């Protein structure tokens, strides 16, 4: 529904919050339409910082973030919002907005000064809620929903921006297994069927390896391995990245082996 796919790419970006303490040191990555990319790595490896650089909210000290070859920093916030959307780790709303109001907020960059919803905005919001199966509780507030339902609302809100790229920051870190799988299935469907580029910071190696098309494994602000799950889920690579002894448990044929910390 958003036309031709767009490519979001980081080229050798470096970032530091405090001088002399690099958080990212030369990270490159490309998010292409039709692919679900999961960012993996131990806490403090720079995954969230990388996501904020990709969003254009942090400016890298070196390197560039490009959207279709044009620097992200050259886009106005509204322009960028029509191309790249973001889903936070914890859904939160300071006021008692209904689910429909929240999803319609995704139309901010498409509407005028007052953000009034026209027929097209309502149709896009409805489609986003349909996709995320949130239409059934459209008139409830976020605090009346379960964690999984609330996170689906935040995904619907991001989809209402009609982006080409969706970035998610550990969207399932507080969800049970069933809801984790549901969100990952949804992300894969978005990447493959809509199709858009989906980039997701993950804390669960096994779930990410099962669903992602590409994995990017980070450690201490650098990418240590990247590629399809089969190439990244290797004993030596993971041991080095997470600094823990691991075993690979063979899964059914054609599946990526399961990682078990020893």
């Amino acid at each position, binding site marked *: 529904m958003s036309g031709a796919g767009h490519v979001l790419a980081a080229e050798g970006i470096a970032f530091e919050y405090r001088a002399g303490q690099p958080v990212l040191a030369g990270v490159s990555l490309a998010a292409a339409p039709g692919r679900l990319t999961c960012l993996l790595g131990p806490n403090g490896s720079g995954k969230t910082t990388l996501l*904020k650089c990709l*969003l254009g*909210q942090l400016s890298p000290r070196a390197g560039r973030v490009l959207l279709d070859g044009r620097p992200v920093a050259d886009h106005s*916030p*509204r322009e*960028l*919002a*029509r191309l*790249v*959307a*973001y889903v*936070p780790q914890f859904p*939160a*709303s*300071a*006021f*008692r*907005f*209904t689910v*429909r*109001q*929240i999803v*319609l*907020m*995704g139309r*901010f*960059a498409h*509407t005028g*000064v*007052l*953000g*009034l*919803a*026209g027929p097209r*905005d*309502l*149709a896009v*919001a*409805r489609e986003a809620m349909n996709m995320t199966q949130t*239409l*059934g509780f*459209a*008139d409830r507030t976020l605090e009346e929903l379960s964690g999984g339902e609330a996170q689906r609302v*935040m995904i619907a*809100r991001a989809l209402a*921006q009609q982006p080409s790229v969706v*970035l998610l920051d550990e969207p399932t870190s507080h969800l049970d297994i069933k809801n984790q799988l549901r969100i990952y299935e949804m992300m894969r469907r978005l990447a493959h069927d809509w199709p858009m580029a989906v980039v997701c910071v993950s804390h669960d190696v096994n779930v990410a390896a099962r669903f992602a098309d590409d994995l990017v494994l980070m450690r201490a602000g650098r990418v240590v391995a990247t590629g399809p799950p089969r190439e990244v889920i290797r004993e030596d690579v993971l041991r080095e990245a997470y600094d823990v002894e691991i075993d690979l448990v063979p899964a059914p044929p054609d599946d990526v082996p399961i990682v078990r910390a020893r």
Partner: protein
Amino acid sequence: MADAPGPTAGALSAGKLAAIVVALLAATAAVGGLCSLAGLAEMTPQVWLSRALRLLAAAVVGASLAAGGAALQGLLRNPLAEPYILGISSGAGVGVLLGLAASARVALPLWASTPVLAFAGAMATCAAVYAIAQRRGRLDPYSLILSGVIVNSFNGAIMLTIYLYVDRYRIADFAYWAMGQLPDSTNLRLLAVCGACAVGGWGVLLASAAGFNVLGLGDDVAASSGVSVHRLRLATFAAVGLMTAAAVALAGPVGFLGLIVPHLCRMAFGADHRLGVLASGFAGAIFLMAAETLCRTIGPYLGAGRIPVGIVTALTGGPFFIYLLRRRFREGVE
């Protein structure tokens, strides 16, 4: 999914907004008209005109403070924020008092100097409160209230100092102003300047309100949705400063209006800040016109002449603040 609610419920369309504006405008005009007729005094054109102008001033003050409160609450994600509590009113008050005191020595037209000095004081206070409460760009709700309290008492001390230099025969005028009293005779030029500031500021806030909505989901979400968060903050503080300056120049410090009215409007219209800022403006005008009329008609029975309207809002608003605060604790918010 067959009985799922229709796609338009809860969405704000241009038609719905226009209908609400018309209804609120009619209600405001009706209340204003009724208020101008209430009372025992013999009705002459002069009496009516003087009342109507005072009610118009009350409407400007009420709309400014209530819409400003609604906007601050949205911007700061804090239902306790309000121009009076955050000290912005007292900053404007210092400016107004300086203007009044200086007018004894320097010939300055009141209608020009008062709003300008009030605006300068309001903006200086905004900057001070923000600087005290922020930590790495984030604002803790209670630090914000606390720095408002501190700046309020600091500004209070400055105002008392100004009193020391004022001709003692004029102290009474100053004291009534400090109680939040609309003057007996309304200065037309001052009303025009302040009215224009209020309407202009209100327009800026209405144009910012869609941004407040998204900001309610967090700074990151707002920025990635296309909101220029930093610019929104600056524009909102400037507009609220301007409106507060207008209100304080007309009526002195009228407190808690920006707390009560937006809260009632949220109960009536829901969380949407576009409706909140819009309805709070009208409802604030209605509230203060009604309160002013009550003060005028009841005062003589209490042997106090016309009661300053600021006393009434403070007496009702103080307990209301405590109620909101306690409810926040009960709900376990932060």
